[in-house]
């Protein structure tokens, strides 16, 4: 009964704050100037244009460099100073290494393929994990809005992730897509590999039926390109958008200050959900699906 009372008091205080805010700060009308999509706009910091190629440095490039640098640095640094009695960081990294080696790679591939593809799958997992995690650290990257500190113009703090831009998941997916086809052709030979796309049990079928099913398989292989890349991109982008809107964006956009008091606690809940579950889960899913695709392409009985 006492816990119930406490819950009611907290909920009542929460709603009362929102109502009080609504009375004190009435709606100031819809805000036309604030554009939430600009949070994901890539401002050119150092324009580099070579013909039709746009190689400008922007915040996505910064996050990409940060994520890959941190992956390389953290993993080599920890592996150099491995101790007999591991401290907490080493234990955590050993757990993650064990996950990539035994669960992701070992669980989906046979021993010879697993040995060959473990470096790639492990690097993929750690790169995506670091990239997602850096995405939830506020860094001074928002050059569109600057904050003046003692006369010095400092970019405002904002969150962004390399994986919240479709290009990086798409490039990772293309690497995965081509490598599992190449690995399948290397394991089975060119024509036997494409023949193995047909599911077993179709020996009695007419050539037209077989061709139709083969076309469906071809489409499913191309859909993998979209699903694998959009899954990672959309999860991270939707997470950032939720944090942006709950952390005050919605209140600014609609011009209702009271809404901010209501949504701000939700921003904390979503932040914990994103950092605790989604960031790791998406890295896990991406590398697991890669392992499953490679395993499906190389295994004899498809």
């Amino acid at each position, binding site marked *: 009964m006492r816990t119930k009372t406490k819950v009611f008091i907290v909920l009542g205080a929460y709603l009362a704050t929102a109502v009080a805010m609504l009375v004190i700060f009435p709606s100031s009308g819809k805000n036309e100037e604030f554009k*939430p*999509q600009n949070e994901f706009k890539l401002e050119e910091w150092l324009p580099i244009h070579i013909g039709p190629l746009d190689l400008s440095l922007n915040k996505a490039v910064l996050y990409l460099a940060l994520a890959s640098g941190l992956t390389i640095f953290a993993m080599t640094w920890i592996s150099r100073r491995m101790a007999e009695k591991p401290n907490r960081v080493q234990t955590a990294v050993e757990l993650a290494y064990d996950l990539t080696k035994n*669960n992701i790679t070992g*669980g989906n591939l046979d021993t010879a393929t697993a040995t060959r593809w473990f470096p790639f799958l492990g690097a993929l997992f750690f790169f995506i994990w670091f990239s997602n995690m850096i995405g939830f650290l506020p860094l001074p990257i928002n050059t569109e809005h600057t904050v003046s500190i003692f006369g010095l113009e400092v970019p405002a703090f904002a969150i962004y992730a390399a994986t919240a831009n479709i290009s990086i998941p798409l490039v990772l997916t293309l690497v995965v897509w081509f490598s599992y086809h190449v690995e399948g052709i290397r394991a089975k030979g060119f024509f036997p590999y494409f023949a193995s796309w047909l599911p077993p049990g179709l020996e009695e079928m007419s050539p037209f039926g077989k061709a139709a099913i083969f076309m469906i398989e071809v489409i499913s292989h191309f859909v993998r390109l979209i*699903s694998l890349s*959009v*899954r990672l*991109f*959309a*999860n991270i*982008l*939707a997470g950032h*958008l939720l944090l942006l809107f709950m952390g005050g964006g919605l209140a600014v956009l609609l011009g209702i200050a009271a809404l901010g008091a209501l949504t701000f606690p939700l921003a904390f809940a979503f932040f914990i959900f994103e950092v605790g579950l989604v960031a790791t*889960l*998406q890295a*896990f*899913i991406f590398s*697991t699906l890669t392992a499953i695709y490679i395993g499906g392409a190389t295994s004899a009985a498809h």
Partner: protein
Amino acid sequence: MDLTALPIAEVTDEGVKSAGKAIALGVGAGLGSIGAGIGVGFIFGKEIESVARQPEMKSDLESIRWLGFALTEAVAFYTFIFGLIAFFLS
């Protein structure tokens, strides 16, 4: 991406245009969430059921559960992203 360049519909009224965008975002995010919600509930429900039947399988089911969860949950985001594209980028 400029969706207005596509020959889908010739809308000149600004109010109708923004209403259409809002409906696209609402229907996209809402219906997508319904489907993914049912799917995620199914996965966790079935997992609880199977652990209740065979508790010794718990550790084996764990990774499959997260795989299924992430695959299903992503469906909600596909529709959400296309709703956002319709709302902000057209």
